[in-house]
């Protein structure tokens, strides 16, 4: 299960809506071993595409180094689908390579908000519950 604050959910959804119709992407870092998303980092979609996203390799290097310096890990890796539902595509699965991350998908295809979370490990997708909290206890 992903437990995440409402503030972070709102930030991710706002980013997805802002970049629509292109896909938006980013991470939420948290302390290593905590499984608690805390620090919102929006990333450039280097592809600027409605059907594909890729972190810019230089930006990713800086962000990953910052996380390393702070003893953080990417607790959440998010991106949006802008014309389809919030379910991982085959491309998403083939690239997924952070075994401990929650892969969050937001769909901006309709007005109804879709915010869903998955574990993707060795090509196997498992949807998980999302618990939105006002603050971490």
């Amino acid at each position, binding site marked *: 299960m992903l437990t995440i604050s409402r503030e972070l959910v709102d930030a991710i959804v706002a980013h997805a809506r802002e970049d629509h119709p292109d896909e938006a992407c980013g991470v939420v870092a948290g302390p290593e071993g905590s499984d608690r998303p805390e620090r919102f980092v929006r990333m450039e979609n280097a592809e600027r595409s409605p059907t*594909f996203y890729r972190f810019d*390799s230089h930006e*990713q*290097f800086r962000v990953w180094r910052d996380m390393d310096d702070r003893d953080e890990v990417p607790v959440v890796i998010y*991106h949006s*689908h802008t014309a389809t539902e919030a379910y991982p595509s085959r*491309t998403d699965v083939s690239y*997924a390579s952070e075994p401990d991350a929650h892969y969050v998908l937001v769909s901006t295809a309709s007005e109804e908000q879709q915010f869903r979370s998955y574990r993707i490990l060795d090509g196997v997708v498992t949807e998980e519950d999302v618990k939105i909290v006002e603050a971490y206890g």
Partner: protein
Amino acid sequence: MAIEVRIPTILRSYTGGAKAVDATGATLADLIGDLEERHPGLRERLVDDAGLRRFVNVYLNDEDVRFLGGLGTPVADGDTVTVLPAVAGGAR
């Protein structure tokens, strides 16, 4: 002295859990060859017949080697090589 290679979580099963390992070589290709001898199986996760795998980013110090000389990029003692999984995907 050697070259420090920083290993991402997903590949640490090849390094006994180590976040960073040492290797030597004159070019990135040599370095990956040396890594393979020390940590069998790692090379295949980094390169294929066409060169660096597209799912992987490799940096020499803070530059993506795709913007340097790819596998032919010269490396030297004291350098740091960082491997990160590319983060990508999309609706198709």
